[in-house]
């Protein structure tokens, strides 16, 4: 049985950063991922990473922008930590080898991004997440003697001892189907978001809410789950992401009449208002009949000099060409708001500790909460790295003072039986993909940019029904080598749990704040709702709701305009 001081589940930016930080303290570390680490969805982050590193900029300004962006739902103590530590994190990355863009003097250069009062986004062309992820993996290869990598291992369950402390996980080696119990003094979840519960989404097929559901099922609190970010610029049809960097570089949004409609909604920041604001503006235009017949508005990147596009936005040139048949350097491209990110997740403190002893969470799986009601562009990479590192350090520090827990190995046979049950389900049941599609369509229809009680109730009913049906879905693959079919059935269960928590939270919050806009409660209501909604599991019943206070340090809520 592999035993480590710190076990990290997920190997995107948060997981890899946590592993490197934990290993640096001398702890024994394992990092497990259901895909090879460089396939993790952090790789798709395009635009950049925020930090007030420029001497003329201040962390307070970054913090205020983040708080305002969060519609005052973000916890200000956590935001302060993130923004204070951001500059050093950028320098750490730079020294580790990230090929950040330079200005003409050879210093780090920045680009403008949404919701920010200064150009403080550091970047590598439009492959920033990719560049950072691959450099972190270079560091993991460098430190292969101190970090054990388990690549293409799927985590099925988190383990608890008699006191409820999380003491490891059970994982399946995809190569041969073997189950293994991983024993650990601390477990860090870094397994990302849950975008696949929506259709379409900018998120990859692997983003199925695994960690959120695993933590939820052993009783961890989820927080801010109703806050779902719709990115303003996703491709019509397939929902692929067009980076906010495009607008950062000067691209315009136009409706079908050719009007630069953001003048109406955010006369100061225009296209670079917060994402929730821009997405709502677009959806309003579309709903009022000012969009194109395919339910879109246009993003005009021809406003950006072609040479600059080819250097700094090369990836979206390719995406336009390959996935939309459009040359973005010569004509506008049709886009609409699309599911992109979940602000909520497993509730943690500023060191990544969840409400379950021994269990940490960092990155999109977690909710610290630094994003509150709406995340600013280029703050997610920062979140993963800062809180990934802090979790790794804290978990390693705690592990130093405790013995290796013993773990009941009987749990392996339970998991084994559970997986075998899925494989043995009779043929002829509903298909996993059909249930997943219905879930995705439901979420995208009722739990999207605009919501109301009727729609949310309808969505909840559908999810409850799908939860009943899912355990009867049959699969085709009965093998042991790379059985992705059985994994898909397990992931479906995770997505349904996450979706229910989201809908329950959205129903509960009878106000409009950040990404949650209730057409039946269109105003922000600080008296009643300046608080987090927490969701916890309640057997097979509808989850239990509770509340946490929002931490306010020095920025009192104000009216939010851009």
């Amino acid at each position, binding site marked *: 049985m592999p035993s480590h001081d710190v076990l990290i589940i997920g190997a995107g930016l948060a997981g890899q950063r946590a592993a490197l930080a934990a290993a640096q303290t001398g702890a024994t570390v394992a990092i497990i991922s259901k895909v090879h680490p460089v396939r993790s969805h952090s790789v798709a982050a395009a635009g950049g990473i925020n930090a007030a590193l420029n001497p003329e900029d201040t962390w307070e300004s970054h913090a205020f922008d983040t708080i305002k962006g969060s519609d005052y739902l973000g916890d200000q103590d956590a935001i302060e930590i993130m923004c204070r530590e951001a500059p050093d994190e950028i320098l750490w990355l730079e020294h580790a080898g990230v090929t950040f863009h330079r200005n003409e003097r050879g210093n780090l250069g920045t680009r403008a991004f949404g919701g920010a009062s200064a150009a403080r986004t550091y970047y590598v062309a439009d492959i920033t997440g990719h560049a950072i992820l691959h450099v972190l993996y270079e560091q993991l290869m460098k430190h292969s003697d101190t970090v054990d990598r388990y690549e293409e291992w799927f985590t099925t369950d988190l383990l608890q001892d008699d006191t409820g402390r999380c003491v490891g996980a059970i994982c399946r080696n995809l190569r041969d189907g073997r189950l293994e119990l991983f024993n650990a003094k601390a477990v860090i979840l870094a397994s990302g978001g849950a975008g696949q519960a929506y259709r379409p989404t900018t998120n990859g097929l692997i983003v199925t809410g695994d960690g959120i559901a695993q933590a939820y099922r052993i009783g961890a609190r989820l927080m801010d789950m109703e806050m779902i970010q719709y990115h303003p610029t996703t491709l019509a049809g397939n929902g692929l992401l067009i980076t906010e960097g495009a607008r950062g*570089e000067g691209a315009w949004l136009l409706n079908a009449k050719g009007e630069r409609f953001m003048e109406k909604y955010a006369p100061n920041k225009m296209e670079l208002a917060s994402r929730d604001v821009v997405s709502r503006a677009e959806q309003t235009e579309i709903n009022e009949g000012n969009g194109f017949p395919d339910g879109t508005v246009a993003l005009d990147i021809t406003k950006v000099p072609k040479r*600059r596009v080819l250097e700094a936005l090369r990836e979206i040139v390719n995406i336009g060409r390959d996935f939309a048949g459009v040359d973005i350097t010569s004509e506008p491209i049709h886009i609409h708001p699309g599911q992109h990110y979940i602000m909520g997740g497993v509730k943690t403190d500023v060191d990544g500790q969840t409400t379950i002893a021994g269990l940490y969470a960092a990155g999109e799986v977690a909710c610290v909460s630094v994003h509150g009601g709406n995340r600013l562009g280029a703050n997610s990479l920062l979140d993963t790295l800062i809180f990934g590192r802090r979790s790794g350090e804290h978990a390693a520090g705690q592990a130093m003072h405790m013995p290796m827990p013993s773990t009941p190995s009987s749990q392996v046979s339970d998991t084994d039986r559970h997986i075998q049950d899925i494989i043995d389900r009779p043929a002829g049941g509903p298909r996993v993909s059909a249930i997943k599609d219905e879930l995705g369509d439901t979420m995208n229809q009722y739990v999207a940019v605009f919501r109301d009680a009727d729609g949310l109730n309808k969505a909840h009913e559908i999810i409850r029904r799908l939860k009943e049906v899912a355990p009867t879905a049959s699969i085709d693959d009965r093998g042991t080598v790379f059985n*992705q079919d059985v994994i898909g059935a397990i992931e479906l269960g995770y997505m349904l749990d996450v979706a229910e928590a989201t809908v329950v939270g959205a129903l509960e919050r009878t106000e409009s704040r950040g990404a949650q806009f209730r057409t039946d409660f269109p105003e922000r209501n600080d008296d009643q709702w300046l608080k987090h909604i927490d969701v916890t599991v309640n057997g097979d019943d509808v989850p239990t709701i509770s509340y946490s206070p929002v931490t306010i340090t020095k920025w009192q809520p104000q009216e939010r305009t851009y």
Partner: protein
Amino acid sequence: MPEYLLKIRRFDPKSGQAAYWDEHRVELGARNSVLDAILKVRDEVDGSVGIRCSCQQAICGSCGVRMNGKPGLACNTHLEVAAARMHGAGWNAPAPGDVVSQDAEEGDGAAGTTPAGVIEVEPMGNMPVIRDLIVDMDAVHWKKIQRVTPYLINKEPVPEREYIVPHENMVDITQTMACIQCGACVSDCLSMEIDPLFVGPAALAKAYRFVGDPRDAEHEERLKDLAEDEHGLYDCTHCFNCIDACPKEVAPMSQIMRLRRRAGSDFEINDRNNGQRHEESFVSLVGDYGLLHEAELLPRSFGGNSWFGKFHPAAGAVLLKSLGAIVPAVLRGKVKIKTALLGHKIAKPDLDAVKRVYKTVEERPQRVELNLYVSGYEDDPEPVGATAAQTASGEGPESASSESETS
């Protein structure tokens, strides 16, 4: 919507069965991707089809496969493009709608009874198959990446803030940084097929990412290490497959050639494999004769361009070893003894033209290296045409793939 015949190469090591073709008819748009078709089969018909995939936008690098013979990403290869590559039409057959010659249409081995096209999807080459379309990248690809010391060795002292480095250098290595480690180049590397120990295109491109990085302290050590390795820098035979295969325009072979120029010209590393001198002899022969002079190649490779050098004993040894290749080539008329010994002749004006090219290149104060990412700043005016290159890395994007070897 057109209907495609999708033939997926299936294999399960636990089944006891040999690999086989699994055929499905799939109705999808011509501009849908091969991955869309595979996922449609998986979702609607058979959930056991094995393929790694996630982002569906050519950034995660999971879905490397061969489609009608050509390696690439299933997610950004359109069905019509893959289908046009019928057997015998080559990797880059024109897509339907373009003018296609009759011969290419017919091909030789394609099943002929399909409405819109046949697409054979196979696992990538040069790597062992684990299951269906899933190959063991750890056993080959990642092992080779490990081989090139794949992390920055910081130049000391590490500055308190960022390293100050030219904009152009960061833009330059962004091309290799754009590699998504999909393995498409490794799949069809001909040198690796002959020499499985060859470090290979992806890993060498990764090596350039550090050799081209001014923050790295060990450029020369890295280059020496790769030049002296008999499976290293000089094992590439310039077949261009990796450039053609790469879905991200990393152009691995161009990066290998840049490593060679850095090793040979900048650090004057004369490797024990004689790779550097062999390459130089090609250059000098073409400079002298306008074409290759086979009889002079070996002597020059070992003895440089000196008369005594022609009798270098090592040249004789290699000549003897090469007879097994030379004799059949002569017998089949691929080489004529006369021209091989006396050299090819080209017309005087043509030779003069070649010499003028050499002169122009050699007189440049600085070597011009081309790069995919264009150099420029936000407030720069739009350059006229694509000839804004003054520095080591600026040039139009289209010119990158036609980079010529000039050293």
